[in-house]
């Protein structure tokens, strides 16, 4: 492409944008809304995923060891547990350590005074690879000889998995639907300019312009619409995210949630928004002019 052609395309594309100010405005508005909805759900899913990761690394199944087992046999139990498929690592905790940990928690003086290591059992803390399989892994641990009892907190795990899966599925569905919606609206805006310019297009064809040449100004128009939308959406996303994070931190019941700060993720978010904006814009313009370029 020659430089004078490029300047021409950009200029034509930009002036198309302004010739339908209201429609361009509406298209940008709808695209921004779509990007924001997609972005917000994706970020919720992302945060749930991150929480789940943390939870996974901290989540433990406690396997209490038979008091009659010798140190050597206890060691063997640990090695066997380590070999279970979903087990990431095991950590041996003596009854003394268990008691010390227990003591850390604020207890009334009576309990504290009567604590005795013999009230506790030696145990293994078993860390898993995949939280989804916790129930099954707990059963396998329980089935191991020498394991007397197992304690596992399935509710917390289940809750987070649910949030993650729902947010993931919803954002995936939203991305698909809203992408189509935004491509459609941008495509309609550009169809309007192609309609305005049908005489010019006819003349360009008559004098022998290539389809590529005819297409470029509209591609730029779509590109600008998409880029503008993604810029605005990015700024708004930042504000929305910060506001949501703020209210989560402020809410007593949600304090245990850790929200990834936006400053940690702004780069991939900006990249995704920019790419989505361009895909939507250029995709919209190509759908709009496809029909025009036959013959």
């Amino acid at each position: 492409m020659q430089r004078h052609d490029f300047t021409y395309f950009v200029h034509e594309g930009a002036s198309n944008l302004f010739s339908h100010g209201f429609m361009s405005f509406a298209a940008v508005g709808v695209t921004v809304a779509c990007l924001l909805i997609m972005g917000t759900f994706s970020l919720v899913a992302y945060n749930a995923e991150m929480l789940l990761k943390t939870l996974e690394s901290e989540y433990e199944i406690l396997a209490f060891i038979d008091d009659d087992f010798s140190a050597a046999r206890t060691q063997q139990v640990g090695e066997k547990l380590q070999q279970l498929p979903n087990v990431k690592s095991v950590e041996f905790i003596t009854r003394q350590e268990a008691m010390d940990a227990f003591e850390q928690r604020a207890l009334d003086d009576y309990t504290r005074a009567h604590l005795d290591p013999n009230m506790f059992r030696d145990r293994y803390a078993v860390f898993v690879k995949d939280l989804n399989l916790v129930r099954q892994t707990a059963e396998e641990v329980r089935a191991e000889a020498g394991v007397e009892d197992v304690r596992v907190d399935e509710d917390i795990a289940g809750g987070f998995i649910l949030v993650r899966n729902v947010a993931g599925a919803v954002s995936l569905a939203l991305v698909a639907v809203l992408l189509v919606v935004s491509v459609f609206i941008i495509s309609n805006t550009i169809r309007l300019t192609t309609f305005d310019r049908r005489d010019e297009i006819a003349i360009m064809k008559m004098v022998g312009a290539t389809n590529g040449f005819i297409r470029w100004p509209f591609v730029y128009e779509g590109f600008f619409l998409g880029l503008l939308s993604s810029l605005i959406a990015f700024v708004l996303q930042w504000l929305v995210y910060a506001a949501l994070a703020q209210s989560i931190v402020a809410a007593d019941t949600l304090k245990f949630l850790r929200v990834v700060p936006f400053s940690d993720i702004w780069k991939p978010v900006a990249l995704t928004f920019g790419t989505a904006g361009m895909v939507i814009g250029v995709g919209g313009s190509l759908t709009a002019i496809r029909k025009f370029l036959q013959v």
Partner: protein
Amino acid sequence: MIRLKDVEKEYENGTYALRGITLTIDDGEFVFLVGPSGSGKSTIIKLLTGEIMPTSGRIIINGFSMTKISDRQIPLLRRSIGVIFQDFRLIEKKTVYENLSFAMRAVGASPRTIRSRIPYVLELVGLEEKTNQYPHELSGGEQQRVAIARALVNNPNTIIADEPTGNLDPARSLEIMRLLGRINELGTTVVVVTHERDLVDRFQKRVVMLDQGKITGDGVGYEAK
């Protein structure tokens, strides 16, 4: 060179517009294409510009075979032909100069080429005074001369005009025909479709007569049969 061999055209709705046209027009010729309404004149023009394809037969124009031409080649064919219509088809929002530069830019001409070519073409059609006027500020004859300038501006070797004087009074029509004659003398092949017998009679040029999709006469002057 334009060569049609046994060309038939049946439109999608079943209308038979052309029934076996064989015709050769050499480089540098001036040809009138005449015939009653509905005889198929515009259909021939559309075949030559690649707007429609023949149902059967062969068409070769400026080295492009229309039955084999690819979508990518059609723009190249069109650059070798300048087309003029009865209704001018100028862009109302653009000045005379902009109408011409638009046509040049569409085929990738550089700003420098555009600047040097347009004054030359406007002088040829006698409109150098009207460079910055808009189409609605011009008479019909002047508008048609702008359209001729636009057809010429990319330096085609063939000009095809479909009733270029249909909207003009006899005096303006004669002016336009003379202009086309002058362009022909400069070496461009010219094919003109017209209804106006008086006009044709004033020029001693080749006349191809068409009736009901067939050629009924071909020779110099209207009476040739």
